[in-house]
Each structure stands twice: as structure tokens, then as C-alpha cells.
């Protein structure tokens, strides 16, 4: 029994780490894990890992999180030694780099006035980046010597920019997730940054996620309103098996009417990739709306043929054929067309969905027509492909947000979350 207690202590600590990783771990899981370890022992690391994964991880996503948490917590002897060697080597390299960078700073210190924080950042730059800056400085050496006042600010700004770029590289989100699972990586990366080779994978991923959302929405719909009016037909039929005794009553489920969806889709230059992915998502969601109409706009507006939209592989050809590809954006004109068209496109049973980055000519006119569109439609939502952290820098985003609820959709993950809200 002493063994079980030892395991319990270690496993409790491990369970805390798993909880921090977002896994829902109950005390019973830890008890079970301890019980299974007393049977299996610690001899084979892989067996222990699989056994604990079976107990603790409850989905594929949790298995991935578990795997990295386990590797971090239960280090193998080899891994501990390798880690120690690696740390010693890294520390040695860091010391060397700092010394070398210190010498370089002595040489360039007079030409570029770096404060202490910048000097520290410079020391931490990789060798290639420092070399690039040195080359740059040598190239402009003559100019700096001739007109130090004129060039020193310029040289200083180049140094600061390089150091900032290095920091931004470190902050690049989604890279770690991609290494762990390419599928999850694609879900949390900026849609605009997908490489051509990744697009088929992204499309397959959209289909997969859309299938799940359909399942969720369908289950949600079924769950809503369990009892409506009495279903006489089913009740009478059901009673035949018991000789006419109405032992079980059947009820009709109240029909939930789906809304009609009107999609206004910005296909101007930079928006076309996002619009394609967003439309693929929405087209795959048969649970979202009863019917949908899609309008494509840039400087002018055209209604997309629903039959052509069924084959999304030809979406870009469709956009090019419509003659609106690669132009500027006039949202005001597009909204005016939607509001003025007869018979009316918008009514209280429609959800108007706008896919755009809010950048348009004549913002004031666009906002005016946006208010009119909001008045005419039952629900209005805006999907914005610009990452939410950048919204505060764009004036038009703030203006639109004051009228319409805006959902960030810069990644496939966010797009999926938005589709759940439709």
C-alpha cells in the first residue's frame, strides 16, 4: 500500500499540471491512475504513458495536451541527461555570444547611441541578425563619418527596427501548436497567411469542423422545446400494441423556424481568400439557415449563382468572371443595392452577414446604409478577418462596431466559433 501512496503523491502533482493545461481531472482519475500503476509498475515508460493517458485524457485534443505534459513531468533518464547537456551548451553559447556582442558594442557604441535596454536587446540578437546590422553600418560608414547628425538617427532607427522584428518573431502565435498537431496549427493561424500547399488541408479541415458544428446544432435544435402539442396520430398508433390503452402520450416538437441568410461578401483583392474560406464554411452548414443568398461586392455588387457556389473549388473563377475581382471596396453602394432591391432582399426573418475588413471608400455613406440595413433585417452580424488586437488602430472598425456586433474571424478556429453563433 505504501507504493500506492507514493504514486498518489506524484500523481496528484501531475493532475494539478494537467488541470492547468485545461484537462478536467477528477480525484477518481488519480485514484484509478495510482491503482493501475501499482499493477503495471514504472519499468516501461511508454506503457505508463499510455496507461495514464487512457485514464486522464478524454478526447484526441486532450491526448495531445497530455502527451506534452507527461513528457515534461516524467522525464526519462536519457532526457534528463540530454537536457542537462543541452542547458550547459546553451549557457556556454550564450556567454560567448554576450562577450562577442559586448566587444561589438564597444566598437559601434560611438557611432550608434544605444541606451542600456537597446544594448541588452542587441546582445540577445542571433549572430546572423547582428552580422546584418554590422554590414549595414559598414556600408554607411563613410556617410556617417561625413554627416553624423544626418545619419545617426537613421542608423539608430534601423537598429531598433531589427531588434523589434526579432521580438515579434518570438511572439508568432500558433507555431508551437502546429508542431504538436498540424490540424490544430491551421485552426489558430491567420487565414491570410496560409501557404498554397496548405489550402487543401485547410479545406479538408473546414469540412471536418463544419460536420461537427452541424452535429452540434442539430442536437441543440432537437433538444429545444421537448413538448409541444399532443401528437394524436402517433399516440393512437402507439396504443395499438396495448389494445388501445393510451399508456404513452407522444408530443409534437414545436417547429423551430430557421432564418434566411443573406451574405454580403467582400471580394476585393486582399479579402478573396478569407471570403472563400468563410463561404465554404457557411455552405457546409446545412443546419444554420433555411435558405441563403450570397452577394459579392467590391466597387459594384452582383448576386452569386447558388449553383456555382455549390462548387467552391471554382469560387475564384466565378469571382473573376463576375468582373469585380481586384477592384476597390464600396460598401455603401453594396448596402444601398441590398436595401433598395425590389422585391426586398432583407426582412425581419433574414440574418444579414457581412464578410469584410471594414475598409471602404466613403465610410460615412457606408455607415448610413449600414444603419438602414440593420433596420430592415432581423439580425445583422459582421465577420472581420482582421485580428481583434489590431482593431483599435483602424478607425472604420470602431465606427462599424458602434452599429453592428462584430466577430473576429482571422483564423479558422474563430470562423468556426462565429458560425456557431449564426
Amino acid at each position, binding site marked *: 500500500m505504501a507504493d500506492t501512496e507514493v504514486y498518489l503523491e506524484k500523481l496528484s502533482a501531475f493532475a494539478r499540471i494537467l488541470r492547468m493545461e485545461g484537462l*478536467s481531472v*477528477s480525484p477518481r482519475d488519480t485514484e*484509478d491512475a495510482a*491503482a*493501475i500503476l501499482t*499493477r*503495471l509498475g514504472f519499468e516501461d515508460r*511508454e*506503457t505508463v504513458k*499510455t*496507461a495514464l*493517458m*487512457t*485514464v486522464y*485524457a*478524454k*478526447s*484526441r485534443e*486532450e*491526448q495531445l495536451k497530455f502527451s506534452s505534459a507527461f513528457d515534461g513531468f516524467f522525464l526519462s533518464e536519457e532526457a534528463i541527461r540530454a537536457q542537462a547537456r543541452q542547458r550547459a551548451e546553451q549557457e556556454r553559447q550564450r556567454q560567448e555570444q554576450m562577450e562577442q556582442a559586448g566587444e561589438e558594442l564597444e566598437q559601434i557604441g560611438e557611432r550608434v547611441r544605444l541606451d542600456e535596454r537597446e544594448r541588452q536587446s542587441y546582445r540577445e540578437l542571433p549572430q546572423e541578425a547582428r552580422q546584418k546590422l554590422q554590414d549595414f553600418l559598414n556600408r554607411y560608414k563613410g556617410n556617417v563619418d561625413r554627416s553624423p547628425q544626418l545619419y545617426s538617427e537613421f542608423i539608430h532607427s534601423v537598429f531598433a527596427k531589427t531588434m523589434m522584428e526579432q521580438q515579434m518573431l518570438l511572439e508568432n502565435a500558433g507555431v508551437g501548436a502546429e508542431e504538436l498537431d498540424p490540424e490544430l496549427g491551421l485552426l489558430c493561424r491567420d487565414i491570410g497567411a496560409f501557404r498554397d500547399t496548405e489550402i*487543401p*488541408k485547410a*479545406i*479538408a479541415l473546414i469540412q471536418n469542423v463544419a*460536420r*461537427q458544428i452541424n*452535429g*452540434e446544432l*442539430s*442536437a441543440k435544435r*432537437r*433538444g429545444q422545446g421537448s413538448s409541444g402539442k399532443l401528437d394524436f396520430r402517433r399516440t393512437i398508433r402507439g396504443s395499438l*400494441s*396495448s*389494445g388501445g*390503452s393510451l*399508456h404513452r402520450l407522444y408530443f409534437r416538437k414545436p417547429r423551430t423556424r430557421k432564418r434566411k441568410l443573406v451574405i454580403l461578401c467582400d471580394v476585393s483583392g486582399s479579402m478573396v481568400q478569407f471570403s472563400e474560406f468563410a463561404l465554404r464554411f457557411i455552405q457546409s452548414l446545412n443546419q444554420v439557415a433555411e435558405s441563403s443568398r450570397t452577394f459579392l461586392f467590391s466597387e459594384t455588387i452582383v448576386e452569386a449563382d447558388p449553383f456555382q457556389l455549390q462548387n467552391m473549388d471554382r469560387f475564384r473563377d466565378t469571382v473573376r468572371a463576375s468582373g469585380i475581382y481586384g477592384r476597390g471596396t464600396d460598401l455603401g453602394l453594396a448596402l444601398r443595392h441590398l436595401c433598395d432591391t425590389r422585391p426586398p432582399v432583407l426582412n425581419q426573418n433574414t440574418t444579414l452577414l457581412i464578410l469584410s475588413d471594414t475598409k471602404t471608400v466613403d465610410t460615412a455613406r457606408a455607415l448610413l446604409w449600414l444603419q438602414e440595413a440593420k433596420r430592415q433585417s432581423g439580425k445583422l452580424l459582421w465577420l472581420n478577418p482582421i485580428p481583434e488586437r489590431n482593431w483599435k488602430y483602424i478607425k472604420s472598425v470602431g465606427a462599424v462596431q458602434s452599429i453592428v456586433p462584430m466577430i473576429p474571424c482571422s483564423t479558422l478556429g474563430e470562423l468556426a466559433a462565429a458560425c456557431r453563433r449564426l
Partner: protein
Amino acid sequence: MTLDELKSRLDETSYVYDENMLTTLFVALTLGRPLLIEGAAGVGKTEVAKVMAHALGRDLVRLQCYEGLDESKALYEWNYQKQLLAIQVDQGREDKQELTKSLFSDAYLLERPLLKSIRSEQPVVLLIDEIDKADEEFEAFLLELLSETQVTIPEIGTIRAKTTPFVILTSNRARPLSEALRRRCAYMHIDYPDMDKELAILRKKLPHVDDRLAAQVALAVQKLRATEAILKKPSIAETLDWTAALDALGIAELTPEAIRKTAGFVLKNNEDLLTLAEEQQEHCGACQGHCHG
């Protein structure tokens, strides 16, 4: 049962498994926890239950889930016809209370898979197949059975399990399952087999097929699964069907012609067959007819 014992029993079946699967099955069996298996259609989830039943020498009780499945189909139902008949026969009986009591006894109870599995004298393997197809209400209904191995029938009361069944639930992830259900289960995910495992399956299931042909089929199936444009990826059963069909036709080499003739055994919709034909055309165009599939 130890891990080695389970391994030797599984070795007696024709199922190809890896160490991870063995450990997972052992853990679930030892802890008496239901095992939730997720994975794409056709990777062999249902087969695990059949193999475990065989390996443990237990009966397999199967509940196939579908939309609208309720407790009358899954747990129990009263035999209404028999009850009505009993009422007619005992009309003159004075002790009405006794009659009512007797109407809700075992004699009038129709056991459905779940009840059967917990009232069995010998422990069984209970397979709840494609749980993602059932409604959320049914999922909630299963919780009592999975955590307490007991069910409650209003007219009788709580029925505790005579023996603990080894429960296996499978899901194709058509919809996410509730946290409550997941929490009560051990979890295993099965992927499509890699080349080596696929070949091992072919060798084990179709030992009479030429090794060269089996290797060619396994490679071709791996390529089909890796092709993004193929909508319905071939399952293991389809690989076996395809190999058996090729063997039955006396084909010893997987040539483009042989693939054309038998592609319907591995790809089951027209779009996929067209994609395959296009790819073959491109490939043959590139190597100018010198290839062998």
C-alpha cells in the same frame, strides 16, 4: 488478468493490435471503466469489441445507436399484449393489488441489450455502437449505467448489475459527446493503420493472398487515404474486400487495368472513382505507360 495474459489471449485472435492499444484495453478492463473509442469510420472500432469478447470468452451484447433511440429500445419494455391477456384471464380475481403487482414482474419484462448485459449471470462485453448517432437525452440516460452499473425502472426500482460488463462505446465524432459521458470513460483514439499495420492485417486476414499483391494493395490504399480529393477514405474492411476481389479474379499484379476493373470495391462513390481515374491518367501520362499502377 495480467497484461501478458491479455496479450496472449489477443494473439489467439486474428486482430492486429499495437502495444498502446493493448495497454489501453488492459487499463479499461482492470479498472472496470467503460472504454470510449473514437476514430474515422472503418478503422476497426467495432472490431475491438468483438475481439475482446472472443479473447475474454464472453458473450457480446450489441446496442446499435440511432437518432430517436430511447430506453424502450435500449433498456426494457413491458410486454403489453401479455399484460392485457393476463388482465383478461384474471378478471374475476379478487386480490386486485396482487394482480397489479404481478403485472410488473419479470414475467412481463422484455429485456433489451442494456438490461440484458447487467442481468447476465456471466459477465459480457457490451458494445454501444455509434453513440454519437443517439440523442443527448439518451447519453444522459446512460450515465447511471456507466458509473454505477445499475439502472432504475420506475415500476420495479433499481436493478444492480449481477456481473460487471466490459462496456465499449464507439463514436465517429459526428457530434461532440458530453463532458459527463467522457468523464466516466477511459478513452482511445484509433487512426487509419499505417503501411506496416495494413500489410500485417492483410497477411493475417487473407493469408492465401500473394505477399507482393498484398503489399501493392496496402501501398495503393495508403496513397488513396493521403489524397485530399478522395472524399470517402477507404476503410480496412474495404481494403480486405478489394484484395479478396483481386485474388478471386486471379490478378497477381496491381496494374492500372486491374485497378480500373476493381476500384468499386475500395471507392464507393462516383466522385472518388473519377478522381482516381484522373490521377491514373496523369500518372500514366507522366511515365508513358511504363508503370505498373
